[in-house]
Structure formats: structure tokens, C-alpha cells
């Protein structure tokens, strides 16, 4: 009696085991083929609050001029050269720090704006303060005072590959928040003459005017770039758009926050693309990289031991495709940074450590710091200068700064009895919003105080 039962049980058990996997798998929802179609909606619900609309208003100075003999044809209202003209503009921005309200956008979106309004995607509008900007890389950092903001996660844009999916979020034509999708069409794109420093991500996601400053995301909803420009013969999208890689943005915003300005790194070389002819002439197998023509005296490159004829193929172990890419990366890494360059010399790969010097074009308009300083252009003094402080490199006549008694060449060495060795110190003091600024100034050999209210 026992035997048949045991066989029966065994058969039942084996059947259950053999077919068990079927029911287990059927329980898994297959999220394709009719049931749950892939959609970006869940991801977008999370990240879209981090992308904002920006509207600006200001006056710009007309650069066009009508030749004197023809001026009366246009009547008395015709714009004279230098005439001020009000303008309005639209763009997009991305919140990168929810607590402090930092918003990244393009320099060209907020350029010359007197008033910057940031509108969240829930409709709330805030007036933004400009923290800093950099024309050469087309990046600007704003701040809004608001609670419960959503910030975007930043990806590592060095890990991108051609063919990866992209999502662009912005405010094209002022229509309101718009999401488009595409793929990475190319990386390290340069030579377009849109900006001074170019190292763009190219995408076929539709980007149009008003998308500028908006977000380019990966499928994890992380920021990979700031949409900046398009190539389109008629001003509209033809599937060729460009974004500034987020790694470049990270470096730039960190410098703006630390120093109030972008301290461009300087390597001290001139060079060009590695052409197949050059590679052949020098007997290199390498087909990509930056060719060093000349190493400047007393430069960071010379200190590190670089030579003319070297080919730089990697920066911090990341492949360098072109001279322009190297140039853009070096400029945005920031002065004082130590980098590792991999270069080919005499057919051998070698690593060189280089500490970047500061390029001398970094100035900042002082009105972004304090209204009473309007009209003055400030920068940190050169580390080699005798007096360390904040140099006033330019003062516009009749500006608040000039009326306060500031002159070109003055060095601000202290404010309110606190020492200011550089822009960062100055920013730190001004951020506390003291009601009175007592500036300790070195003018030549003289030391004097100027009080600004």
C-alpha cells in the first residue's frame, strides 16, 4: 500500500518541480510587447522639476550705426551708435543644488540682463541673483532663494558613448517645458566657432532657441550636458544640436563658487591636430591626439618637462581626440589643478604630472558682488605680485565704483578689517551682506581706506 502512494507522491513532486519554473516566470511581468510599453514618463516626473524657465529683461547697447548722411531718412527715433535699447530674452536653466538654489544656465541667455526671473515647472517665479559667468565657455551660475527645490544628479560625462540615449528638457520658443529625445551623435565636437572653448556633446534630440541652458540627460535622469547651440541653416532644428559636457560644467561652477570667477588653467603650449601626415612624418601609430608645436618659457608645461613634437593622447587617463578638446578641458579644469598628461615621445608612452597655471584673462564684473562696486572689474592679483589682494583692473567713469573713489590699479587688501588675499576672501566677506564696506586699498606705495555704503 505504501509503495504506490510513495510513487504517486514522487511523480506529483517531480511534476511540480519540472513545471514549477513556468508558473514562477509567468508571474514576472514582462514590461514589453503590449503590456507595459517603455516610457520615459516615470523618470521625467522625477527630474523635470529641476529644469527651470528663465526670462530676462535688460538694455543692450546698440552696436549698429547709421552713417551720418543717411540718418535723417530714419527720423529722430533712429538708433544712434551706443544707444540703449530694452530687450527681453528666454532660456532654460538647471537646478544643481536644491539647498542653496544654484541654477546653471548659458552665459548667452543672461548676458546683459538687468533682471533675471526663474520660473519653476510648478509655476512659481523667483528673481535670481547672478553668482558668476564665463563668456568663453558660455556658462553662468545663478542663485534663487526658494525652499523645496529639486536638484538634478550630475553624471560623469566622460563615460558617455556615441549611441547612448539622450533626453533634452527646456523651454523652446517660450512654449513651456518641453521634452525631446535622441541619441549621442558624436563626442568631443569642436571647430564650430560657437564658443572659444569647444568640447561639445552632439545630439539629434530636437533643441531649439529657448532650449539654451536646459538639461541634456541620460536614461538614469542624470545631467550629462547643458544644451547650448544648434547647427541649422534656417535657425530651426535639423537634428544637429550641441551641449556642454557636465564634467566641464562641474569644474566651472566649482571655480565660480570658490573664486567668484573662472580661473582658467594654462598649460603653456601651442599646437594643433595630429594629422595623418604629421603622424607619418614622426613615425607614430597614433591617429588621434594633440600635437605640441611649441612649449612656452616659464610655463606649466615647461616645468613638467613637455617638449615640442610630443603628442598628448590622454588627460587624466581619458582619451584626447583633438587639440581643441585638450584646450577646452585644460581651460575649464581650473588653475592650480594637478593633471596627468599621457604623451607619446619617441614612440613611447609616458605620463607627466603638470600643475596648471592661471591664465590672465579672468576678470569679473564687480556689480555681481555688490551694487556699490558697479563699474569696477575685479580679479585676483597674480601670485608673483608683491601685494596680494583683489586687483581693480578697470573702473568705468561716473559709475558707483568711480564715485566711491576707486581707481584702476587699486588693490583691495582688506574689507572691514578682514584680510582679502583673493576673490574668494572678498566674496566670503560680501556674502555676509555687511551694511558698510570699509575697503583697505593699496595704491602704489600708499595705503588708504574707502568707505562704501
Amino acid at each position, binding site marked *: 500500500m*505504501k509503495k504506490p*502512494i*510513495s*510513487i504517486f*507522491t*514522487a*511523480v*506529483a*513532486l*517531480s*511534476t511540480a*518541480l*519540472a*513545471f514549477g*519554473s*513556468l508558473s514562477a*516566470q*509567468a508571474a514576472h511581468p*514582462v*514590461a*514589453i*510587447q503590449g503590456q507595459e510599453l*517603455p516610457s520615459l514618463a516615470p523618470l521625467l516626473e522625477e527630474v523635470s522639476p529641476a529644469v527651470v524657465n528663465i526670462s530676462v529683461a535688460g538694455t543692450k547697447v546698440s552696436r549698429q550705426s547709421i552713417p551720418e548722411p543717411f540718418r535723417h531718412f530714419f527720423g529722430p527715433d533712429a538708433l544712434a551708435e551706443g544707444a540703449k535699447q530694452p530687450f527681453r530674452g528666454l532660456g532654460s536653466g538647471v537646478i544643481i543644488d536644491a539647498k542653496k538654489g544654484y541654477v546653471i544656465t548659458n552665459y548667452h541667455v543672461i548676458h546683459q540682463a538687468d533682471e533675471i526671473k526663474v520660473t519653476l515647472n510648478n509655476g512659481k517665479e523667483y528673481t535670481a541673483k547672478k553668482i558668476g559667468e564665463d563668456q568663453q565657455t558660455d556658462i553662468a551660475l545663478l542663485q534663487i532663494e526658494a525652499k523645496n527645490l529639486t536638484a538634478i544628479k550630475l553624471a560623469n560625462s566622460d563615460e558617455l*558613448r*556615441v*549611441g*547612448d*540615449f539622450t533626453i533634452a528638457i527646456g523651454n523652446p520658443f517660450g512654449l513651456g517645458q518641453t521634452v525631446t529625445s*535622441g*541619441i*549621442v*551623435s*558624436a563626442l568631443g*565636437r569642436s*571647430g*564650430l566657432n560657437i564658443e572659444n572653448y569647444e568640447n561639445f556633446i*552632439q545630439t*539629434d534630440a530636437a533643441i531649439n532657441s529657448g532650449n539654451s541652458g536646459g538639461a541634456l540627460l541620460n*536614461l538614469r535622469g542624470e545631467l550629462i550636458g547643458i544644451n547650448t547651440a544648434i*547647427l*541649422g*541653416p*534656417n535657425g530651426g532644428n*535639423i*537634428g*544637429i544640436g550641441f551641449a556642454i559636457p557636465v564634467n566641464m560644467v562641474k569644474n566651472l561652477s566649482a571655480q565660480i563658487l570658490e573664486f567668484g570667477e573662472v580661473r582658467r588653467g594654462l598649460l603653456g603650449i601651442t599646437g594643433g591636430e*595630429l*594629422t*595623418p601626415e604629421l*603622424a607619418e612624418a614622426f613615425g607614430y601609430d597614433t*591617429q*588621434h591626439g594633440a600635437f605640441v608645436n611649441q612649449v612656452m618659457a616659464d610655463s606649466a608645461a615647461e616645468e613638467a618637462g613637455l617638449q615640442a613634437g610630443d603628442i598628448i593622447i590622454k588627460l587624466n587617463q581619458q582619451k584626447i581626440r583633438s587639440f581643441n578638446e585638450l584646450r577646452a578641458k585644460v581651460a575649464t579644469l581650473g588653475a592650480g589643478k594637478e593633471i596627468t598628461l599621457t604623451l607619446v615621445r619617441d614612440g613611447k608612452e609616458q605620463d607627466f604630472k603638470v600643475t596648471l597655471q592661471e591664465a590672465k584673462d579672468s576678470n569679473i564684473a564687480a556689480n555681481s558682488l555688490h551694487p556699490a562696486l558697479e563699474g569696477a572689474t575685479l580679479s585676483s592679483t597674480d601670485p608673483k605680485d608683491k601685494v596680494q589682494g583683489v586687483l581693480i583692473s578697470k573702473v568705468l567713469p561716473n559709475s558707483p565704483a568711480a564715485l566711491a573713489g576707486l581707481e584702476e590699479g587699486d588693490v583691495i587688501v582688506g574689507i572691514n578689517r578682514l584680510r582679502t588675499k583673493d576673490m574668494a576672501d572678498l566674496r566670503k566677506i560680501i556674502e555676509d551682506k555687511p551694511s558698510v564696506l570699509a575697503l583697505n586699498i593699496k595704491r602704489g606705495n600708499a595705503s588708504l581706506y574707502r568707505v562704501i555704503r
Partner: protein
Amino acid sequence: MPSVLSYLIKSISIGLLIAVFLLIFFPPLRNNHELPFAEQIETYSRQVESYSSAVRRAAPAVVNIYSQDYQRSNINSQPELRPTGLGSGIIMSDKGYILTNMHVVEKADQVLVALQDGRLLTAQMIGSDAITDLAVLQIEAENLPVIPQNPTYSPKVGDVVLAIGNPYNIGQTVTQGIISATGRTGISSTGRQDFLQTDAAINRGNSGGALINSRGEMVGINTSAFHVTQTLDSYGISFAVPYLLAERIMDNLIRDGRVIRGSIGVIGGPVNPLMAKLWGLEAQKGIMITGVMDGGPASLAGVKASDVMLAINQMPVTGVTDVLDRVAEVRPGEEVKVKLLREGKEIELAIEVADYDELQLKE
């Protein structure tokens, strides 16, 4: 108690044994939904994550093409090479055969091919075909990257495709879209209406570049906005010659230097329903001959306008494109037997097929 335990152990172990045997001898039980599921996951994750693997496979085989022309400069009478054309091309075999668009290289005195690894080579023109706007070049080089090809892949509307090319000479660019309409592979193909259509962004300079699927296999060759007005570039409607057709055209160009198509010199159209009813042709398809070229092969064989063509070489005809394709495939000089319906009677005529190009010249 121990007897119950031993009973349980015994039956469980026998059950496990049987289960193992069942699983070994009947793998379908084991696999039940695993394969399609895994496949689905694979395609799903490929769709979701990135097309970078497809790009890596295909992109090195897509080259930039610059055509140059001898032009007399104004200053001295010495002719010099000036760039005249820009496009893309696809390396089809390790023998160095490159497919591109005819309009990219026609009238060029010199054609330069730039590989993605930086090599710049001068190409030799093998042949071109105006009807499909295709041309074949050859370069001499070693270690050439060749585009992945899969003759068994048939494009379907909705398949994801990537276009690779060099728009506006900004550098290699990959754009994504789907197949909007499929094309024909018959060599009588007369243009865009027969080609693959896609919404991937294709612009000036993309001409001759590759259209690939998500596995990196060649789907077609882009023949970009060449006829389209200059003011509208990409607007989501672009065309590509299907891979199978492009490959056949290439083989013909390599063999003969041109594409030899047969022609019998007739114009025809579908039989209208009223006529079909009158002649009792509803069950049978046929085409109505509406014009016969004077002195052409059909006219010489005695074909007249208003005849209805029912079959070629005993095979019933199904439509105008079917007739065009089948006649085009016949080598000039060979005969075809054509079954016609004339005044209610079926007759059969032998027609000696002529060369399409020569016939065009005569006309």
C-alpha cells in the same frame, strides 16, 4: 515515526530523481519561456540602454568623401584642384569597394576618401548608376573596416535605425529614427517612392552614408536631401536605397561598369475595373499596354497599344512594377515569351529584349 520519515525521504528523493531525468530528457520543460524571455530582455535592454555597440560595429566602415575638380583660377591659367562635393560612403568589402551616392562623386576629377582612423586615400571610380543614384569606388588599403551585412534581415516599418554620415562636414555623426516605409529590391527601381523611408535626421553630407539597424547591420545607403529644396533640410522624411538592392547594383557595377537593364519599349498601366469586367479578367491580373515605342522591341514583335499583357515566360504578371522588374532582369539580346489578350483572344509573341540605356538614347 521513523517509518513516516523514511517514507518521506524515500519519496522525495525518488521525486527529485524523476524531476532531474525529466529535465534532462525534455529540455523544453526546462526552457519553457526562458529563451524568448531572455531574447526579449536582451532586445529590451539593448533598446533601453544604448546603441553604442551597434555604432561601434558599423561606424568605422563609414567614410567621409570629398570630391575635387580641376578649375582654372583667375590669376594664373594653371588649373588647380578645388573641392566640389561632400558626402559619405560605406566600405562594403575588404577589397576596398566603397558604395556612395552618384551625385557626390559625379563630375569629380579626383575623389578623396577619409577613413575614421585618419587615413586619407585617393579612390578610383568603378561605376555609377543614375537611376538609383549609386556609385562604386575602390581604394587600396589594408586592414579596412567592413560594414556588417546580413542578407536575411528584412527591414520592417517601425524597426529602429541609425544613420551614420558626415553632415555639413562637422565630423562623423550618428542620428536615430525608425523605418517609416520599406522599399523594393527590384533593379527597375526608379527613385524615392521605391526606397526605404526613415525619420532619422539626414542632411547634406550624409549622402552615401549608412543606415544600420540596432545590431549594427547595414539596412540601406542614405541618399539624402539631394532633390529636396535647400530651404528645408531634415524634416523627418529621408530616403535610403535598401541594402539588397544596393548590393545588387554594386555587383553589377563591378562586373559591367554600369547596370544593364532590359527593356521592351512599352508603356502600360493597370486594367481598369470596367474593362476587366467586360473582358472577364477579374480573376486574372494583367496590365494594359497604353503605348508602344516606335521601332522598339515590342513594336518589332507586333505588340500593339490596348493589348493586355497576361504573362511573361508563362508566369502571370501581377502589376506594372512586377513587369518592370522582370523585364529589367533579362539580359539584352535574350527573348521573352509574352502572353497577350487581344480582342478577346489570347496570343503569344516572342520579344527580343533591348538594352534600357540604348533604348533611352534612341528616343
